[in-house]
């Protein structure tokens, strides 16, 4: 099954039951700090949704509330139409892959995987069969009798996934499961886990502070900030059309220019910035302070054809080579600003110190109220 076909399938299934997981008006405070305030979230059946945000934004708290390890002050959580708010953790049938995996070191790999099945008091023969299937699924057949501490980080993660999914949970929660793996392994495991969960058709909530991870893995991303969901949409739309300055800054990199709205009409307006007068779609009161954002790959070198482009001139400060791409850093007129351009191929003869003309489509200029 190709990835895109799988995506189409998952999306259509999510349409069938778009409220499979329903979180309504959930609030949580620790002492005098409000961690979550009236948070709503609906996740479709079979969907993979990431909760993305900086530490302290409430994403792990939300996860623990869904799992029943924390009780919310207000609001409710329902899965498949069943209200779980007052149901104890062990009766929720929600699987969790913990950040440190929380595997049981006194048990073998197979015993770890069998733990949930034993708690359900299934017949021994059936448990053996299911454990065997799960071991095959995560390619650890030869490790059944190993001790947990004798496994590598990647293997431990696969055991944790097998242990959480073998009980066929109604919902799977993943709490930063890649954070202790090295980068290369992390990338492999991300794709592998994505395929595995799609094959198992398990609805998943994935907590991460790593935007790349969220972009790679998710059907939808919920960007969280200070106890609220700021933006919930597909990775492509969250990236291209972030609906707040916070989301733009947190997901991906971008050029950022502060300015003042100078009036406009028909949904297009002029903004005075340190780089001169620029145009952007949208409407703000004349004189209000705004911030412009442009994704680095939207910007090209050279004059634009016609007036559908914004044009600025800036001095090149630094060239950083990333292999497949090259990032150019420019010196903005206002030191609080930032100008960066992402090029697939570096034109010959370009060196730091050169003054270059940059252009980008007006339509790709994002405008936010200044914080």
């Amino acid at each position, binding site marked *: 099954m190709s990835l895109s076909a799988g995506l189409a399938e998952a999306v259509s299934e999510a349409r069938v039951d778009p409220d499979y997981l329903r979180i309504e008006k959930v609030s949580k405070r620790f002492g005098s700090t409000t961690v979550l305030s009236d948070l709503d979230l609906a996740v479709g059946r079979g969907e993979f949704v990431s909760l993305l945000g900086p530490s302290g934004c409430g994403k792990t708290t939300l996860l623990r509330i869904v799992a029943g*390890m924390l009780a919310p002050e207000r609001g409710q959580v329902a899965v498949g139409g069943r209200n779980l708010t007052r149901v104890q953790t*062990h009766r929720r049938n929600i699987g969790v892959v913990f950040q440190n995996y929380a*595997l049981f070191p006194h048990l073998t790999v197979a015993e770890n995987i069998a*733990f949930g099945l034993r708690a359900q008091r299934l017949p021994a023969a059936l448990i053996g069969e299911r454990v065997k299937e799960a071991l095959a699924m995560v390619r650890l057949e030869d490790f059944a009798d190993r001790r947990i501490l004798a496994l590598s980080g990647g293997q431990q993660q696969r055991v944790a996934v097998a242990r959480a999914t073998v009980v066929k949970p109604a919902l799977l929660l993943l709490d930063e499961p890649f954070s202790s793996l090295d980068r290369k392994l992390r990338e492999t495991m991300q794709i592998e886990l994505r395929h595995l969960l799609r094959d198992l058709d398990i609805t998943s909530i994935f907590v991460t502070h790593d935007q790349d991870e969220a972009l790679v893995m998710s059907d939808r991303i919920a960007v969280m900030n200070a106890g609220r969901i700021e933006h919930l949409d597909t990775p492509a739309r969250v990236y291209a059309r972030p609906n707040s300055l916070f989301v733009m800054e947190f997901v991906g990199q971008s050029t950022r220019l502060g300015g003042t709205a100078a009036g406009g009409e028909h949904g297009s307006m002029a903004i005075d910035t340190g780089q001169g007068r620029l145009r952007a779609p949208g409407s703000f009161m004349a004189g209000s302070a705004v911030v412009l954002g442009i994704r680095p790959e939207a910007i090209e070198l050279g004059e634009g054809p016609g007036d559908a482009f914004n044009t600025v001139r800036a001095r090149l400060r630094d060239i950083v080579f990333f292999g497949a791409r090259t990032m150019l850093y420019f010196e903005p007129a206002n030191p609080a600003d930032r100008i960066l351009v992402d090029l697939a191929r570096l034109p010959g003869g370009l060196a730091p110190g050169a003054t270059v003309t940059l252009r980008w489509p007006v339509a790709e200029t994002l405008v936010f109220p200044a914080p």
Partner: protein
Amino acid sequence: MIARLALGFCWCMLALVLIFLFAPILIVVAVSFTESPIFAFPPTGFSLRWYGAIRNADGLIAAAWLSAQIALMATATSLVLGTLAAIAVVRRMVPAGEAVAAFMASPVMIPGLVLGIAMLQAARAFGLTDAYSTLLMAHVVVTMPFVMRTVLASLSLFNFDMVDAARTLGCSYPMALWRVLVPGILPGFMSGALFAFIASFDNYPVSIFLVNVRTKTLPIQLLNQVEISPDPTVAAVATLLILATVAALIACDRLVGLRRMASI
């Protein structure tokens, strides 16, 4: 040359310390096999008659049995209560957890005599006249610090996500504690239990205030025995206790390893 001298000096000190620690034990063991009815070293001849004499000695067996019961029950009670209290402290479920932990570990720092008098007064005040239950309660207080100390140390290294993991896999909270936390901190349990048992079994200063004529623990009965008939029967009892201690250490080593227990 100086290094070698220093090393030799260290070895000598080590040998002296070991002799100082073990010689009394060896003397007691040797005396227990004597033929003569006098508690004297070196022993004369070889016999097991003092082991036979334990049975006939007044109340020794009964006292040993009582001490074993009290020590076992006090240790078990301390383990359950102490572990639950330690969980509450480590997981910050109660305010001023540190103070609670310090309080529960404090009896070990109070002189036994003071504790014994206090216990006696308290029992009187509450109208508690039964020596057996008073002893048991006092010994829970005496054993609690040993359990608290080791269990707190083990719990601070324990990953509580494992308990949550067990719960998400279908175990109720008490079941999750039993199936994941207990095996996880078994070394701490074992060493805590061992120290607690020994502290209760050979406790003298607290027990002396709480026993009566019919209810006497082994240490008190042994001292009586020495006063009444100072023969090597007590040496035989002591040798059996040493044997039991060695057996317990070997059992612990087999179960969880002394190295792991000592590291708690």
